[in-house]
């Protein structure tokens, strides 16, 4: 049976701290609706975050939660999953937290294929600290540390996670809300390391630097820049400029880390000491 979303919230913490129109709240709603559809027990869920605007998410949910250090949500989550593989462990990171400060942890969690779901809220900027560009700020866009335009290439998290060894990789947006809930549900159900990158809006730090003054304007930009994976294949490089592809990119079965580790424990316990 469907529950009111408020069942999953720490009501006393509301209204939340995020700015008007911030995509973090939309992402939180999508995560909770996916959990509600799956009928997961609140006590079996561990939600782990690092540092950044989106990492405040763990303060608002009535699960087992940890708000950890910058970029280190995945190592903490790995520890929890290793100690109790029965837990359903969800990691929420921002683009800077995941791909800059925690970049190494991200590729190695994917390489191990440990059964965690990494949700990356990609608003393309360091919002909390004042709008510095991140590794996911597109080339040519503006940040407070790129007032003449960003000259860096941005990471493609989908390709990065796929190459590093994840089991499930998808990209959605806060505008395409029903497909987003489906992608998150599939990621939650996946045994192995699953990644959902979510293109999100930061009207304050990103929007104002990039000629989008409000949340609705940013959502229109997200809507108009998104291309489904089927259409994407037939676009020229010129047509792909300033667009991004959304959908599901990887869904494979392979050995999962905690299961492999349990086999190591079993083998070790069978060995007699001294022989």
């Amino acid at each position, binding site marked *: 049976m469907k529950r009111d979303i408020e069942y999953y919230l720490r009501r006393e913490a509301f209204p939340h701290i995020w*700015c008007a129109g911030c995509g*973090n709240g*939309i992402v939180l709603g999508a995560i909770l609706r996916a959990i509600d559809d799956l009928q997961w027990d609140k006590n079996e869920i561990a939600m782990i975050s690092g540092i950044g605007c989106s990492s405040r998410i763990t303060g608002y949910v009535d699960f087992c939660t940890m708000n950890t250090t910058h970029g280190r949500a995945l190592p903490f989550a790995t520890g929890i999953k290793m100690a109790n593989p029965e837990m359903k462990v969800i990691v929420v990171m921002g683009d800077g937290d995941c791909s800059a400060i925690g970049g190494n942890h991200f590729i190695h969690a994917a390489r191990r294929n440990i059964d965690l779901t990494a949700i990356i809220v990609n608003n393309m900027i360091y919002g909390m600290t004042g709008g510095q560009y991140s590794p996911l700020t597109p080339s040519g866009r503006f940040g407070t540390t790129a007032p003449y335009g960003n000259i860096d290439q941005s990471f493609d998290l989908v390709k990065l996670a796929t190459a590093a060894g994840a089991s499930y990789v998808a990209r959605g947006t806060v505008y395409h809300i*029903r497909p987003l809930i489906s992608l998150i549900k599939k990621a939650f159900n996946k045994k192995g390391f699953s990644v959902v990158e979510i293109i999100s809006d930061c009207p304050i730090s990103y929007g104002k630097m990039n000629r989008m003054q409000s*949340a*609705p304007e940013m*959502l*229109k930009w997200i809507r108009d820049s998104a291309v489904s994976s089927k259409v994407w294949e037939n676009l020229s490089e010129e047509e792909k400029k300033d667009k991004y592809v959304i959908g599901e990119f990887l869904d494979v079965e392979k050995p999962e880390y905690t299961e492999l580790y349990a086999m190591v424990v079993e083998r070790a316990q069978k060995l007699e000491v001294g022989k």
Partner: protein
Amino acid sequence: MEKEGSKEIYQNNSVKITVDKEWCKACGICLEFCPQKVLAADEGGKPYPVNLSACTRCGLCELRCPDFAITVEGVEGKKDV
């Protein structure tokens, strides 16, 4: 319209829209993207239904609300979104 704490409840014989005026931050997302233009802004920029009978209970306002401030239900109490 009825009030329940900070919540304003608007209802006809098929749909019930609840807006939490304390949680809403007047971002305008629900107003902009309602497919039926059911909602309008009050003087503070927060939504209220001007055209409740046009609501198809698609629930997009609720799903896209960053603040958990608007909900859409069928009047029989069953959640549609």
